[in-house]
């Protein structure tokens, strides 16, 4: 067997039984954008634009490095972007332009 096969046979989210440290009991209240992101996820599923299983698959597809570095809702929104591109609902250019616009708006309003 090729040495790299384990990289594709076991998805990065599939961690039941692997070595891990102590449980960190710290909790945080969701930031407003995180809660909006959760609501967005629910609506995308209700309307079957991106169902919950597609969201999970989209997060897995980000790969171990990205999953290990991004926060929970950061992973979700990046996965949503990718899936919306794949489905032809958004284009990368559209999203980039809109992000520039949102950033400029926030800067102009003196709030981020």
């Amino acid at each position, binding site marked *: 067997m090729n040495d790299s096969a384990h990289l594709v046979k076991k998805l990065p989210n599939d961690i*039941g*039984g*692997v070595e*891990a440290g102590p449980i960190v009991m710290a909790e945080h209240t969701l930031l407003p954008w995180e809660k909006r992101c959760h609501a967005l996820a629910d609506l995308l599923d209700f309307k079957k634009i991106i169902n919950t299983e597609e969201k999970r698959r989209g997060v897995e597809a980000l790969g171990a490095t990205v999953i290990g570095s991004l*926060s*929970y*809702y950061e992973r979700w929104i990046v996965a949503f972007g990718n899936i919306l591109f794949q489905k032809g609902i958004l284009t990368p250019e559209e999203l980039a332009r809109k992000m520039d616009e949102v950033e400029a708006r926030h800067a102009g309003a003196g709030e981020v």
Partner: protein
Amino acid sequence: MSAHEHNHEHGHDHPHAEITAEAAGYYEIMETAVRELLAEKGLIGPAEIRRQIEVLDSRTPALGAKVVARAWVDPGFRARLIADGRAGCEELGISFYDDTQLIVLENTQEVHNLIVCTLCSCYPRPVLGLPPDWYKEKPYRARAVIEPRAVLAEFGTTIPDDVEIRVSDSTAMVRYLVLPRRPEGTEGWSEESLAELVTRDAMIGVVPATLPESVQ
């Protein structure tokens, strides 16, 4: 050790990195941009987002606690809840907006239940709200299925060896809610007072219901 595990190990130096976002940055802007683009295309309306946030805000462990307290005082309800968890909660007006089913796992003198989602973060959101960070992070997800007794000990819970531990790993449309044991010394208590003994963590199964002494 795979590259993925290395990355998670690295993450332990920054316990909040996995969950907590940096203040107002790139990803928040991305979220706003995606949402606004979908609204411009008529796919999702701002009012729908606001409504769903209200839905999320209305789901807290207090709902689950009321379900448990009702089950403690009403044997008929308890039987219906165990037969069909979703229908039991729906009797109390709790809707299952995510279209999941619910299995209620009753703790007894012989069996202690614990819930986990090793693959992601499946959780009985309609009745408990959103899960705590630790439930979504690697240590709990990785270890609950291989050393549940050690995991419980980290929550201060010791289960005698003659009590069977059942770990339920969520993977599909089914969610779980643990029905903790009613503490002794609560005979005659009102449903409202009983509900105060039922914490979120007790309904995940990592701790027992609060003892009556500690709330009086």
